[in-house]
């Protein structure tokens, strides 16, 4: 496919790894934030092509993995109600709650449906006026404009049977949380290209300055990722800490202003809990008061549901870059994609699932 296959060129990928090897003088730890990038790295073995000392640390950029367990429990409670059609992206169905997942609700007769686009949920609400349609609105800044559009459309259509269970998260506060952690090892970042397509690059400059880390906005194909690593290593070796755009075919420095306006119309910034990490200030989005009528947590009596996480799963440490999936004692034994203990084993973009799929059970 055009604008995809060219960026998977094997020769270019190998030469880029050579170019990185040619300039490295010491060890550096670089975090790729986005789970989509983690997936590419493990799938193509990019981490193994890099010179010794360049470590890619997998970041918290998988919305499926960071959605708090009590939100999953609330989703399960709403989805089990007889009047509800519960719509979700496929990845969320197998994320374990404290008792069950959405897939189990579906197999027990709950009306749980996968949607490709959030707008499909609005169409379902319009076509089923006697049912309550609830959309599970999760994601980063990339997905926020699409999810905001559902509330906007539902309001303009006057739908009274549509609501959103919102658990939106934002990338820059998570980067700050990683860098503020006393155990932090990260010295440079590959920023998530599709998040930046929406937000632009301005939010990253204060982070690069304050923490003295280079941040390179990077795409998702092997050549994109290794070019991002090369730029990041160049900056580290030269002692620079700038925000660079390695994905200019998609990302404009100012971002997507139309989409940002729609996000701001529907959502406001709030503190959010991240699964395995805890609460991060100003790290999420919630519906504005103006759209409170579309808030599923107000429409259904679920807001009091709380839950504790599994004690075996070390997802929190993995998501913050302190540990890698193979450090987890449950990896591949107690925890597999068929029986996941934690969300990173569920989502195709979760670090544990990527290692299980492409690296077998014990291979580094």
């Amino acid at each position, binding site marked *: 496919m055009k604008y995809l296959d060219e960026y998977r060129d094997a020769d270019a990928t190998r030469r880029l790894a050579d170019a990185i090897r040619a300039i490295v003088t010491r060890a550096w730890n670089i975090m790729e934030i986005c789970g989509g990038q983690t997936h590419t790295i493990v799938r193509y073995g990019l981490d193994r092509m890099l010179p010794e000392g360049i470590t890619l640390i997998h970041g918290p950029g998988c919305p499926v993995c960071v959605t708090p367990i009590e939100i999953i429990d609330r989703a399960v409670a709403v989805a089990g109600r007889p009047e509800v059609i519960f719509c979700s992206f496929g990845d969320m169905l197998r994320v374990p709650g404290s008792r069950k997942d959405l897939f189990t609700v579906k197999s027990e007769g709950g009306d749980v449906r996968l949607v490709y*686009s959030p707008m499909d949920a609005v169409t379902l609400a319009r076509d089923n006026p006697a049912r309550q349609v609830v959309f599970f609105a999760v994601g980063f800044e990339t997905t926020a404009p699409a999810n905001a559009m559902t509330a906007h459309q539902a309001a303009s259509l006057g739908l009274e049977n549509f609501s959103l269970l919102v658990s939106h998260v934002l990338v820059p506060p998570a980067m700050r949380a990683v860098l503020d952690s006393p155990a932090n090892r990260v010295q440079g970042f590959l920023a998530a290209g*599709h998040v930046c397509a929406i937000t632009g690059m301005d939010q990253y400059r204060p982070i690069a300055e304050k923490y003295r880390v280079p941040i390179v906005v990077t795409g998702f194909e092997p050549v994109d990722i290794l070019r991002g690593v090369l730029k990041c290593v160049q900056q580290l070796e030269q002692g620079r800490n700038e925000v660079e755009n390695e994905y200019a*075919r998609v990302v404009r420095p100012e971002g997507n202003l139309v989409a940002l306006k729609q996000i701001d119309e529907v959502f406001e910034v709030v503190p959010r809990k991240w699964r395995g990490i805890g609460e991060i200030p100003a790290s999420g989005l919630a519906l504005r008061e103006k759209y409170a009528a579309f808030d599923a947590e107000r429409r259904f009596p679920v807001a009091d549901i709380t839950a504790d996480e599994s004690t075996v799963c070390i997802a929190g440490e993995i998501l913050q870059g302190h540990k890698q999936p193979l450090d987890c004692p449950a990896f591949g034994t107690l925890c597999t994609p068929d029986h996941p203990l934690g969300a990173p084993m569920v989502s195709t973009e979760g670090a544990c699932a990527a290692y299980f799929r492409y690296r077998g059970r014990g291979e580094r």
Partner: protein
Amino acid sequence: MCLGIPGKVLEIKLQNDVPMGRVEFGGIVKDVCLAYTPEAAAGDYVLVHVGFAISVIDQSEAAETLAFIREIAQSDPVSPNPRIPEPP
């Protein structure tokens, strides 16, 4: 979750005041909401995420990267290679 796929805009029409495009992804055609890329025209490539175009692909930037890829892919395979071009 943040997966984005590039596709070619075939035609654009308005649906309830919202611009919608027929967009082709390697032979498969889908309806895509263009509300966030009002500048998109037929023939443009857009990056699509969960049914919404989030960016129009800048063809001159893409061409620059492709030229870089061709150059580096054909460079001398004996590493490390001092003639490897710096990314533009």
